[in-house]
């Protein structure tokens, strides 16, 4: 445990090594997110409420996904790289240390750019989320759940590289959940909608949390928690089993 905390501290130190770059990278990401917010505000200004979603709720969705995304991609930055690390043989250093490999791997790298997402998400919630103590508490809880879910999902899709020998699955999964999580799930219908609650749990990463902040429902909250834990466990299990098949770049597995 001490070791993992020390690792996290070093990762943050490394990210902050270049203050100027850190500041500008975070700002760039924040501007990126602001444009999304502008789009949604303009959209709902013209369109009005659709399927239970209005400007306020969509900003909650944006706040949740940027905060959770910022945690997963910013603080646990290796989550999206599990696939490529497995295929490129970059896990040797991790496996040489007496630490739990997945935990160390996740804490090993902080991506400064995405820290801007966290700043944006928190600020957005404070400014546009009508924060009360109750809502803030729910916000923190659902962001934690969403981040856990996203991390688990990325580790799961990335770990498929151990079995398939290619890391594209991880990249695809990453883009899919981020893209689809940026929209309210009620826009989708039929098969697509079912998929977003199961295979690519984008609904649980943003839409469900946003709804919970507005109208908390213990049943929905329990489902969110369960799905998050399930994906976290699935990710860990796939990674652990996959490690046994790790070839460490000793052999080029691509054609």
């Amino acid at each position, binding site marked *: 445990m001490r070791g993992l905390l020390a690792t996290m501290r*070093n990762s943050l130190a490394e990210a902050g090594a270049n203050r100027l770059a850190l500041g500008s990278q975070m700002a760039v990401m924040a501007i990126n997110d602001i444009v999304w917010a502008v789009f949604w505000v303009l959209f709902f200004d013209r369109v009005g409420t659709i399927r239970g979603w209005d400007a306020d709720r969509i900003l909650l969705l944006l706040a949740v996904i940027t905060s959770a995304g910022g945690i997963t991609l910013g603080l646990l930055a290796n989550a999206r790289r599990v696939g490529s690390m497995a295929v490129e043989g970059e896990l040797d250093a991790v496996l040489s240390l007496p630490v739990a490999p997945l935990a160390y791997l996740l804490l090993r790298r902080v991506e400064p750019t995405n820290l801007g997402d966290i700043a944006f998400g928190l600020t957005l919630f404070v400014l546009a989320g009508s924060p009360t103590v109750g809502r803030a508490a729910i916000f923190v809880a659902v962001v934690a759940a969403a981040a856990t879910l996203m991390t688990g999902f990325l580790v799961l899709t990335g770990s498929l590289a151990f079995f398939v020998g290619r890391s594209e699955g991880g990249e695809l999964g990453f883009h899919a959940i981020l893209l689809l999580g940026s929209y309210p799930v009620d826009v989708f219908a039929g098969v697509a909608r079912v998929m977003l609650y199961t295979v690519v749990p984008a609904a649980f990463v943003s839409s469900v949390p946003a709804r919970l902040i507005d109208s908390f429902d213990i049943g929905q909250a329990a489902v969110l928690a369960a799905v998050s834990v399930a994906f976290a466990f699935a990710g860990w299990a796939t990674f652990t089993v996959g490690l046994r098949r790790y070839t460490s770049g000793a052999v080029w597995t691509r054609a």
Partner: protein
Amino acid sequence: MAIEVRGLTKVFETGRRRARRRVEAVRDISFTVDPGERIAYIGPNGAGKSTSIKILTGILHPSRGEATVLGVVPWLDRRRLAMRIGTLFGQRSQLWFELTPRQSYRMLAAIYGLDRQHERARVSELADLLEAHDLFDVPVRSLSLGQRMRCELAACMLHEPEVLFLDEPTIGLDLLAKQRFRELLVRLNTERRTTIFLTSHDVADIEHVARRAIVINHGSVIHDAEVATMRGALLATKIVEVRLGEPIEAMVMDGVHVLEQSPTILKLVVDTGTTSIRVVLDALLDGASVVDISVVDPPLEQVIAEIYGLPRR
């Protein structure tokens, strides 16, 4: 027994669908290493050196066979073993690039469970041993390769491991840095009885560090002997170099092979099993106008090259 290996095999599957191939990176290798030994594990590129070391450090699972390091099976008990061994891979760094070595040591100390006092003492000790006092507080990206390798060595020695595994540690270093590094390894071994297990394809590493060499090629052990005895036992040859005053006709003699011949130089390889040096020298001194003559052992490179050509043990 520090390391015990029996029948170790590792098979990789590569290529896709119809082009699928099985590559036996390591094939049925066996050897033992006693505590305090200095072993060079040598072979050409692709021989299976790195694969072996990765199995012994728990990074890879073998396909067949057994191995224990300090009584522990590496791939089953990786974390427990990692507390007692150190690893240094020449091409991968333990140290974090943007931070100072000391910051990396602090983290490693926490990972290895050293308390602050102990950590401070160890870092100071290592600074003395490796003559690296002025290096520990400089960001790693500002260090030269030689300086960085010394700091890497400190990193893997921080927790006082009983066995040190090094995979091509001197790669990329200049001559002076290589020499210094080798001296440090020998000192670690003589002062602390740390078992040194070093892979290399640099012959000088064998000459200056190892007492024993295990030679591997195509995944199998083809020779395992004390470095000192390797030359004598393996090659019954000598090289005779002659500077001539006048050109001579071709020299034909049993057990003698002409390496090089010009009007002024004659270079011979003599198989001392067939013909004694004495006979060759007599023939030369009688039949040629000799300005200078030297008789030397073949270089270690040649010995190794010869060994690579040997069939599997």
